[in-house]
C-alpha cells in the first residue's frame, strides 16, 4: 500500500464507515458536488447519493441541530464544519443541546462534528483556530485531535461508532504534509488513549496534533545534547488519558506541555493541576508549557510565526526544565 496523507486517511475512514453502516450519513456545506473545501468528501456524493450526503445552506446551527435530530432516530451523522472556526456559530446547539441530552434525559447523540483546524497556513484569525477547549470544558462531549494519518483514520472510525457526540479536529497543516502507510485490513484506534511517540528518561513532553511533530523534532534536537525526552501524543483531550500522563511523569519526573491552542485556559493548565493533585512528589521541576500567545491568530507570516510555538521554543523550554 502506498503511503497516504492524513486527508486521504480521513476520507478513507468516512467511506469505510458509510460502506459498513447505512445509518452513517454526511451533512455539511459544499460537501457533495464540490467535495468539501479541502476535498475530504470528494467522491462521497457520487457513491452514496444525495440522501446520505446532504448539502446544506450556510447554517451551522441548523446543520448541527438537524444532525442531532437524526441521531435520535439511530442515524450516525458525520457533520463537516467547513473550517472548525465556524463551530462558534453553533456553540449553543453543541454545548446546550447536543452535549447535555444524555445526562439530562437519557438521549445519546451519536454524531461526529469534524473540521479543519489549526494555524501555520496563514489562514488568518478566522480560519486558523484551535477551539478545542471551549468544548473540552463542556461535559458530554468527546474531543479528538489526531496527529498522524493512521490515528486520524482509526480514531474517526471509533468516533463514528461511539454513542456520544465527538468533536474531531483535523489539523489542516498536517492534511497533506505527512504521509503514512496504512494497514490494508480494517482497524480502529480507541478514544481516550494516549500513545508514546518517543521513549525517554529525562523529561516528558506532552502534546497533540501539529505540535506533536514539533515536539518530536525538538526531542531530536535535545537528544544531540544528551537530553532524552519522552514524547506523548494525547490524541484525545476528552476523555483525557490521565493514567498515561501520570505514568510518564512518574518515570521522567519532569513535564513540559506543548499545544498550539492559546495559553490561558489551554489543556496545559488542566494537566498541570492534574499532575499536582496526583504526582506532586514525583516532580523534580516546575511544570512548563509552550503554547501560542494569548492573542487571536494573526495573518502576516512574521506575526503568525511569532504567535505559534516552534521547535526552538520547545527545545529551549525543555533545556531549561532539564537543568532542574
Amino acid at each position, binding site marked *: 500500500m502506498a503511503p497516504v496523507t492524513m486527508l486521504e486517511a480521513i476520507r478513507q475512514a468516512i467511506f469505510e464507515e458509510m460502506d459498513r453502516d447505512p445509518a452513517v450519513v454526511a451533512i455539511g456545506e459544499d460537501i457533495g458536488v464540490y*467535495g468539501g473545501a479541502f*476535498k475530504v468528501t470528494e*467522491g462521497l456524493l457520487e457513491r*452514496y447519493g*444525495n440522501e446520505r450526503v446532504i448539502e446544506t445552506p450556510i447554517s451551522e446551527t441548523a446543520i448541527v441541530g438537524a444532525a442531532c*435530530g*437524526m441521531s435520535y432516530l439511530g442515524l450516525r451523522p458525520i457533520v463537516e464544519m467547513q473550517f472548525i472556526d465556524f463551530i462558534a456559530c453553533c456553540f449553543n446547539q453543541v454545548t446546550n443541546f447536543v452535549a447535555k441530552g444524555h445526562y439530562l*434525559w437519557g*438521549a445519546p447523540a451519536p454524531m461526529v462534528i469534524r473540521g479543519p483546524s489549526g494555524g501555520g497556513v496563514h489562514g488568518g484569525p478566522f480560519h486558523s483556530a484551535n477551539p478545542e477547549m471551549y468544548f473540552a470544558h463542556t461535559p458530554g462531549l468527546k474531543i479528538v485531535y489526531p496527529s498522524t494519518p493512521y490515528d486520524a483514520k482509526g480514531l474517526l472510525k471509533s468516533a463514528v461508532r461511539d454513542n456520544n457526540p465527538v468533536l474531531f479536529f483535523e489539523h489542516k497543516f498536517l492534511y497533506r504534509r505527512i504521509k503514512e502507510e496504512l494497514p490494508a485490513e480494517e482497524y480502529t484506534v480507541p478514544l481516550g488513549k494516549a500513545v508514546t511517540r518517543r521513549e525517554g528518561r529525562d523529561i516528558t513532553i506532552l502534546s497533540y496534533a501539529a505540535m506533536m511533530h514539533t515536539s518530536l523534532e525538538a526531542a531530536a534536537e535535545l537528544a544531540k545534547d544528551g537530553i532524552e525526552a519522552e514524547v506523548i501524543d494525547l490524541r484525545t483531550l476528552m476523555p483525557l488519558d490521565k493514567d498515561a500522563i501520570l505514568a510518564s511523569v512518574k518515570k521522567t519526573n519532569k513535564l513540559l506541555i506543548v499545544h498550539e491552542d492559546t495559553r490561558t485556559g489551554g489543556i496545559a493548565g488542566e494537566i498541570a493541576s492534574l499532575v499536582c493533585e496526583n504526582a506532586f512528589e514525583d516532580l523534580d521541576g516546575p511544570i512548563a508549557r509552550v503554547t501560542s500567545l494569548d492573542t487571536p491568530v494573526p495573518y502576516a507570516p512574521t506575526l503568525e510565526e511569532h504567535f505559534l510555538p516552534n521547535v526552538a521554543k520547545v527545545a529551549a523550554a525543555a533545556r531549561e526544565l532539564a537543568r532542574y
Partner: protein
Amino acid sequence: MSPSSNGAAVTPVTRQQCLDLYYYMRLNRAVEDQMMKLFRQNKIVGGLYSSLGQEAISVGTAYALEKRDWMAPMIRNIGALLVKGVKPRDIFTQHMAKYTSPTQGKDGTSHFGDLKNLHIVSPISMLGDLIPVMTGVAMAGRYLGQGIVTMTWIGDGGSSTGAFHEGLNLAATQRAPFVLILENNQWAYSTPVSRQVPVRDLAERGRAYGITSVTVDGNDAIAVFEASRAAVAQCRAGNGPVLIEAKTMRMKGHAQHDPAEYVPKAMREYWEARDPITRFEKYLDANKLWDAKAKQEIEARIAALVKEDLEFAENSPMPPAELAEQGVYCEGCHTIEAEWHRSKAEVTPPKSSIEAGWHVKDFGGIEAPLNSGNGASEPPAANTVQQYAGKAVHESVGRAVQKSSGRPVQQSSSPKKIAAVPERRPFGRGPKGKRGGGR
C-alpha cells in the same frame, strides 16, 4: 373555520374527537391548577410557566399527530405532552425535582423526552433550537422510510432567534415533513409582539421561506385541530414543511414570579372573553355533542387522575446526591439502532450512486419569471417517501427562456433540457485514485 390549505376535502371532526379535545384541554388546565397550588406550597423547586388560555393550541395540534410521529414541546405545551401520552405524574415529579421524574431530578419543567416509546424530544431553554433538531428527526424518518411527521412549537418571541430562521430554511430546502406551530401569545416575557416583529401575521415568516403558512384562531380548538390535521397530512404526503401561526394570549406572566402588570387591562379582558375552554363548552352545548352527565364524567375522570398522580409525586423521594455524577456519557447504557422501514440496499452502493453535478434552473438569470422558485437546484421533489428515495436531488430540468426587450418574459412553451454538466475534474491537490483505487 378550516384552512384545508392543500385543497383536500375536509373530514368532519367527530363527536369523539371533540370530547377528546375537551378532555385534554381540561386535563391540561387541571394539571396546571394543581401545580399552581404546589408552587404556593413551595413544593415546586424552580419556576412554573403557565399555559392558561393556550390549551387549545397544545391540545389541538398534538391531537393531529399519530403515535409514530415525533414532537418536541416548548415549556408551555403541557397539553401536547398529555395528548402524546405523558402522565400527569411525570409533569408533577418533574417540577418537584423528584427521583421518579423522567429526568430523575436532573432537569425541571417540561424539559424531558422519550425517544423509545412516546417519541418526544426534550426542549432546552434556548429558543429556536428545536426547529433544526425536529427538522433532522423528520429527515431521518424519511430516510429510514418511517413515514413520520415531526412537530414543535415556538413563541412569537422565539421566532426572532437565529436558530428559528436557520432551522426553518433548512426544513424548507429539505421539504422536511415537519410542522412548526408558532404560538403568537402576544408577549415575549414583557415585550409585546409589535415591538419584536414588524409584521402583523407571523405566518409571513414561513412564507418568506417558501413554505405553506397559515394563521388560525388559537383559542378555537376545532380550528387549531383542523389546521394541524391538514398540515400533518400535507407533510406526510411529502409536501412539507408547514407553519401554523396560532394567535392567542398568554393569560399569566412569563412565569409565576411575574404579575404581568405591563399587560393593558382592556387587552386582558378581550382575551378573557375568548377563553378556549369556555368557548369549547359552548360549542359542545350548541351542537348537542354532550350533556351534563358527559361533562360530569370527564370532570370526575380528571379529578381522580390528578389526585392519584399527585399522591404519587408527593410520596416520591428526591434523587440521591451521587446521581449528580452519573450519566454524562453513554457508556453502553443505550443500544442505538435505527428502525428501518425500507431496504438498506436503496441507500447503499451501487443503488445509491448518482452522477454528481448541479443543474441550475433558469441559470439564476434576471429574465426568468420572478416567482419561479429559488433559482437553485430543486429541493427533493418528494411526493412520497419512496419517490424521494429514488430521485436524485441534483437533477432538475432547466428551462429555456426567450430573450427580448429586457423585460421578464414567459417561459418557452417547449422546454428543453440543458446540456449535461461536464464531469468535474478533481481539484489539483485532491487525493489520487478517487472513486477507484483510493476507495
